[in-house]
């Protein structure tokens, strides 16, 4: 089928299939899935500028479905999401500026590529280690498995940090936390997302759990709510630059809507540490994909 805006012929079932696959991941892990969808769309023959813009557009629609489902399950802290989004948007703009500086220095591909690999490997390895530790704690001490975190030290220290103004998030069970911490988490994840050109859910979700101290199920839902706003903003700016094929995004969304529902419902069958253990595979997969791309582009001497 021809998509005249992007000027390419792509099988719509393939696009819906990509949407379905990424939708399941989105609903289950609370990530946008851009780091998986982008290479698949590029592989399907979509030009790179349309890959970035269209992926963000379909991510917006898909995240709405998943966020609504999580909201119905009581897994979205709207207050936390709204507070964090200020930092996220500022971070995304900052990340875009970093890209411009790297472009002028002529080192954008190699720096971003390596940053991607290092960050994804760190997040993946840390999450594996922590979730296995949490599962061991549950086994040894017969603790309630749902919200056990094997590495709660950072969140505990962050909660006692007295840097006004302080704010509470009762939905997430946080009595008091510095507003700057929440904005900082949004800024850092937004900055990384803006620099790496992805939604940033795979970084934001673990940071919400380990730094802010949000329970895993709530982190998944709140992260999706955050993605709706940040991806909506991103898709609007890309559409203004002519990088979005709306028809393509609508087709992908039909698959993603079902996937997101199934993913969100599936979280009810898994405990927090198990979700995080499964989640850890995503950044590791992303790191492997980036290493392959770097090797293919000859940016790693082999």
């Amino acid at each position, binding site marked *: *089928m021809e998509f005249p805006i992007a000027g390419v012929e792509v099988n719509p079932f393939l696009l819906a299939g990509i949407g379905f696959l990424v939708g399941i991941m989105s609903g289950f892990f609370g990530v946008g899935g851009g780091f998986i969808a982008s290479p698949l769309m590029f592989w399907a023959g979509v030009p790179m500028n349309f890959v970035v813009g269209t992926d963000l557009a379909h991510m917006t629609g898909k995240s709405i479905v998943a966020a609504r*489902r999580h909201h119905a399950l009581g897994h979205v802290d709207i207050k936390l999401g709204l507070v964090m989004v200020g930092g996220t948007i500022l971070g995304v703009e900052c990340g875009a500026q970093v890209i411009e500086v790297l472009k002028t220095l002529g080192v954008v591909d190699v720096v971003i590529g390596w940053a991607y690999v290092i960050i994804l490997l760190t997040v993946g390895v840390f999450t594996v280690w922590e979730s296995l530790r949490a599962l061991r704690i549950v086994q040894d001490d017969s603790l309630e498995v749902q919200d056990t975190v094997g590495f709660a030290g950072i969140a505990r220290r962050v909660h006692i940090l007295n840097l006004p103004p302080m704010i509470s998030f009762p939905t997430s069970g946080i009595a008091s936390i510095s507003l700057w911490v929440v904005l900082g988490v949004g800024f850092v994840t937004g900055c990384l997302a803006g620099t790496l050109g992805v939604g940033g859910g795979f970084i934001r979700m673990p940071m919400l759990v380990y730094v802010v101290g949000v329970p895993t199920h709530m982190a998944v839902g709140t992260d999706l709510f955050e993605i709706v706003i940040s991806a909506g903003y991103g898709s609007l700016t890309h559409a203004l630059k002519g990088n979005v094929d*709306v028809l393509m995004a609508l087709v992908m969304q039909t698959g993603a809507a079902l996937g997101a529902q199934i993913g969100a419902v599936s979280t*009810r069958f898994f405990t927090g540490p198990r979700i995080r253990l499964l989640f850890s595979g995503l950044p590791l997969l992303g790191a492997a994909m980036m290493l392959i791309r770097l090797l293919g582009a000859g940016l790693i001497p082999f």
Partner: protein
Amino acid sequence: MRPKMRTLLRNFVIELTVYGVVATAYVVVVLRLLSEPLVRLFSSNLTAYALTGLILILVQGVLLDIVTSFLLDRLRLGRLE
């Protein structure tokens, strides 16, 4: 395989089939209706195209959410715990 899991998988396949048929029909109709006006808007007014695109995505997101929620409830896919 446990009976619960078997029911879950069976319902999942049914939902996938029903939704697949509905979504295919919808995509064919929507693409046919929207294709030309969107292409015209893309080449004449990018701002209107961007805003229309975002609205379409948001509206479709909510509509698909209602359809998939309906299917999930009808097939009791979300109630097996």
